């Protein structure tokens, strides 16, 4: 079958979203650099966003959840920005105090 | 256009060709524009500094000067510093260039002469031009040199913070027009020059100047060119660059200058509509047939290019007139002055539009109701039919929008 000939559906977007989400999770789980973890978070949020937009898009499924998807996606974007600002501040603080950016060194709260 | 090619090509090839033609046109705008403007800048700076500027190359006025420079740059050796991050160092210029190039996708040059008519064109352009900073930052980092890194950092801080007032300023005309579609925004200002949004009310007038400041800053032209402050950092982020890559940076810079000027022209100065509606007087409009419409659009195109060039020239004038700011002063200008002023102007414009929907002397030839997006027409019948609270509330919204249109 010719992939390029047939119209795309929600599921295509969902697959992309899933891949980005998992990639983000793996990125979070493997990067030792705090900022790398942050990037993983951004990826995860983006995967989720792709899903929201796909569900909400009138183009792909006119009887979907309508605008709510896009609105929630907007909120996610904004909150991601906020989260990035705070996380970055935390990372820099961590860097100032421990003079390293390695998250494995941040285990004072070990039980 | 693609339809035209389809007659004698397989469709996918036809579309490809069509796309390529569009791209070629746009790239020409940037490349040729950059050449012209570099030459122009030399002349302008020369005149301002009481010099002549280039005079020899290509006969009079040295009008081939920048072409010659281009050739020189292309033939120049292309260095890659040892401590550089090779991949990023190579990619960075193209990132900048692509960014400022993408801005042209949504920038209409005349009525409906636009590569991609989007209904969020304004934000799209702002966003894409904002991406130019990545090239600079990456260049700054990848060069592996302190000066470049400093340049990149400054650029990052500056651009990120200047996007806030820039966005606020852009929102004001959008608020008045009631749409983010640049084409319809331009159409609303058709007619006499009194219809231009810059004359819509005092707030928009001030907003334009704030916008211009922020735009100058966000394309990092002097006096905001902290990223390439040759007196402090050798040449800032492009210290290590040379040859074609370097020239790409410059094309990007001039391209985005042109783009922001064009945005200003459409948002505040009526875009392709001249000060006098000569086109409509000469009945050079689409109603009188495609040819006349085409001629009218050509006239509009000239208008538009002239306005943009005026904006660019103004930037040059500013550059060669004002001294460069310190980085903290740049930040102060943005956060302590531009942002509050822009916010205040936004508020004022809102109140003004609510109070006098007609603006000062604005009598748009196109009633807004036809421009606003489809929800209005869609909302009207249902809301009038149903009496449930939710739709009553919506009816109020719709009604308000409707009579604000009627008010114009």
């Amino acid at each position, binding site marked *: 079958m010719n992939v*390029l000939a*047939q*119209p*795309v*559906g*929600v*599921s295509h*977007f*969902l*697959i992309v979203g*899933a*891949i980005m989400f*998992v*990639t983000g999770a793996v*990125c979070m*789980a*493997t990067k*030792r*650099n705090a*900022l790398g973890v942050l990037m*993983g978070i*951004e*990826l995860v949020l*983006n995967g989720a966003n792709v899903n929201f*937009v796909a569900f909400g898009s*009138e*183009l792909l499924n006119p009887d979907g959840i*309508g605008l709510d998807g896009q*609105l929630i996606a*907007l909120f996610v*974007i*904004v909150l991601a*920005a*906020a989260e990035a600002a705070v996380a970055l501040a935390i990372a*820099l*603080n961590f860097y100032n105090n421990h003079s*390293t*950016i*390695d998250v494995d060194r941040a285990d004072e709260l070990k039980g | 256009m693609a339809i035209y090619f389809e007659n004698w090509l397989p*469709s*996918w090839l036809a579309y490809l060709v069509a796309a390529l033609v569009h791209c070629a046109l746009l790239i020409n705008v940037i490349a040729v524009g950059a050449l012209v403007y570099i030459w122009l800048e030399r002349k302008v700076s020369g005149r301002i500094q009481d010099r002549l500027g280039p005079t020899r190359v290509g006969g009079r006025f040295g009008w081939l000067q920048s072409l010659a420079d281009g050739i020189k740059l292309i033939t120049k050796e292309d260095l890659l510093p040892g401590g550089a*991050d090779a*991949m990023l160092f190579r990619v960075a210029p193209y990132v900048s260039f692509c960014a400022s190039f993408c801005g042209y996708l949504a920038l209409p040059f005349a009525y409906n002469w636009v590569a991609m008519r989007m*209904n969020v064109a304004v934000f799209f352009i702002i*966003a894409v031009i904002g*991406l130019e900073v*990545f090239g600079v*930052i990456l260049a700054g980092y*990848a060069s592996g040199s302190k000066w470049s890194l400093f340049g990149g*950092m400054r650029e*990052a801080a500056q651009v*990120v913070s200047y996007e806030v007032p820039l966005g606020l300023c852009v929102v004001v005309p959008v608020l008045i027009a009631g749409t983010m579609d640049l084409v319809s925004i331009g159409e609303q200002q058709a007619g006499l020059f009194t219809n231009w949004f810059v004359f819509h009310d005092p707030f928009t007038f001030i907003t334009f100047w704030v916008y211009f400041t922020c735009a100058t800053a966000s394309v990092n032209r002097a006096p905001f060119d902290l990223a390439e402050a040759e007196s402090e950092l050798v040449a800032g982020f492009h210290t290590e660059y040379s040859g074609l890559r370097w020239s790409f940076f410059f094309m990007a810079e001039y391209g985005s200058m042109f783009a922001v000027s064009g945005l200003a022209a459409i948002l505040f100065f009526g875009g392709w509509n001249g000060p006098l509606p000569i086109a409509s007087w000469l009945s050079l409009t689409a109603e009188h047939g495609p040819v006349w419409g085409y001629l009218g659009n050509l006239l509009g195109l000239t208008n538009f290019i002239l306005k943009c060039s005026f904006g660019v020239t103004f930037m040059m004038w500013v550059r060669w007139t004002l001294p460069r700011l310190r980085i903290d002063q740049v930040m102060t200008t943005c956060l302590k002055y531009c942002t509050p002023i822009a916010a205040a102007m936004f508020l004022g414009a809102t109140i003004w539009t609510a109070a006098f929907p007609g603006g000062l002397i604005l009598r748009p030839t196109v009633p807004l109701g036809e421009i606003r997006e489809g*929800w209005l027409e869609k*909302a009207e019948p249902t809301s009038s039919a*149903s009496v449930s609270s*939710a*739709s009553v*509330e*919506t009816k109020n*919204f719709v009604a308000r929008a409707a009579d604000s249109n009627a008010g114009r």
Partner: protein
Amino acid sequence: MDINWHSFFFMAFAIFACGFALAVVISSNIVHMAFYLVLSLGATAGLFFLAGADFVGSMQLLIYVGGTLVLLIFGVMLTAQSPFISMKTKGGEWILAAIVGGSLLAILLQATLNIKEWQAGEKPLPDRAPVTASRLGMGLLGARVDELDKPAAARAGMSGYLLPFEIVSVHLLVVLIGAAYLARPKKRIVPRGFEQESQS
């Protein structure tokens, strides 16, 4: 052969997005990661445009790519010193993460592909998506002009997003202040009586 250009561009952007996302994971150089992330998110914005969400797309470009990631890269540069630019992870962790992630991916894909309404219909898509910008604006203002044709019962409780909008904006302000506070320069606290020593 006739190409459905929508699908074509979708494929292109999808491959970009996923590919660069993978590149983010695989690359070990933090700055390269940041760059790939930029490209991946930009491609995602392209996907949004393809899904007919122009406004969200340009918002993604403006706020996410243009703002958040610049901030991120800023942070990367601030902390980019030779030992931290590339920090290797032990192979065991790689394998563990790969297994866990793979299972998660498997589950997600299975969920995605099993639900029939989500599959692509054979009917071609409408060539132009409905305009959403001002409807989104009204939605944020609290009026759902897109739902007017729905019956009142279905619209019950769908009163728009005014409150979340307000909350988010206040939240943003708080975040700004908080970030500035966290990242403020540290002052050395001089115990009383030791001023001389501290100055010398």
